[in-house]
């Protein structure tokens, strides 16, 4: 796998891990434990992907990336079919949408990697330094730009917002024009 792609994969894993970990706050205990474990595994896998030259357990990683997306999709479908919007509303939309984008990216990259097969003896080729840093900067800016608003939209982020600056939750309030009496 090209080094820059592997780095983007690590960025995606770390971003997803942070979002899942932030979702622990405000979740029921059992779900919170699952999210915490998931977040830690994803974050750890991301760091290992940076540090090692080969991917750690790519098949398991593919499944771990896919399960939360499928689970959330099923929840949305169930919520819609059973006309129970409170089911889908139990999770904030933006954080899980961003996490799903990262996870689907990881699934695609890992899927291609596994389909091509790998040579365990192959020495990874490092790109030219400028190309590497440029590729890295693009990935970092995209992931940071998506992860930060996603984290801010979690219960933890909303809880920490200052009272005078909570623009994020303002659009959800329906302001009807006042009628004269």
């Amino acid at each position, binding site marked *: 796998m090209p*080094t820059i792609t*592997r*780095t983007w994969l*690590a*960025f995606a894993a*770390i971003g997803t891990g*942070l979002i899942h970990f*932030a979702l622990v706050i405000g979740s029921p205990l059992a779900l919170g434990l699952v999210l915490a474990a998931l977040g830690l595994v994803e974050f750890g896998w991301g*760091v290992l992907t*940076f*540090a090692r*030259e080969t991917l750690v357990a790519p098949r398991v990683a593919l499944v771990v990336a896919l399960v939360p997306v499928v689970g959330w999709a099923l929840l949305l479908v169930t919520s819609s079919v059973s006309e129970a919007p409170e089911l889908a509303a139990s999770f904030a939309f933006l954080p899980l949408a961003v996490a799903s984008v990262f996870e689907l990216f990881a699934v695609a990259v890992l899927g291609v990697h596994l389909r091509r097969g790998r040579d365990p003896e192959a*020495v*990874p*080729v*490092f*790109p*030219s*330094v400028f*190309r*590497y*840093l440029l590729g*890295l*900067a693009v*990935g*970092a*800016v995209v*992931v*940071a*730009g998506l*992860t*930060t608003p996603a*984290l*801010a939209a979690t219960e*933890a*982020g909303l809880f*920490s*917002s*200052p*009272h*005078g*600056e909570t623009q994020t939750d303002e659009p959800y309030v329906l302001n009807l024009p006042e009628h004269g009496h």
Partner: protein
Amino acid sequence: MSKSPNRLLGVIFGAVYVLIGILGFTVTSGVSFFATEGGLLLGIFEVNIFHNVAHLLIGAALLIAGLSNVRAAKTVNSVVGAAYLALGLAGLFLVGTALNILALNVADNVLHFASAAILLAVGLGADNSRTVTAKA
């Protein structure tokens, strides 16, 4: 130096952070050292004097390590990256509180996360012994 991603990144980031630290003082006149609301650098990033000093120190550390050798640059990049990741997370909780002694705002948090990602990726992933660098 240009053959080592860690050294090159250390020098570039170090120089940029030192520059940001110096420029920060142009928007913090009348702002106290630990003020929770500072001036806006480039109209986006909120800074106070403590934040400027932190930028200068971090920039200097990255710059010196980048100019020294690969091992120092790799270590400092990784440590500063981890610190920025922690600060990015803490910043989510600090914005708008009395504990916001760095005068952080949302744009600062994005910048800190992006810096953390780049520094950690290069610090942990580049200049390992078993990689082969492309000539192009």
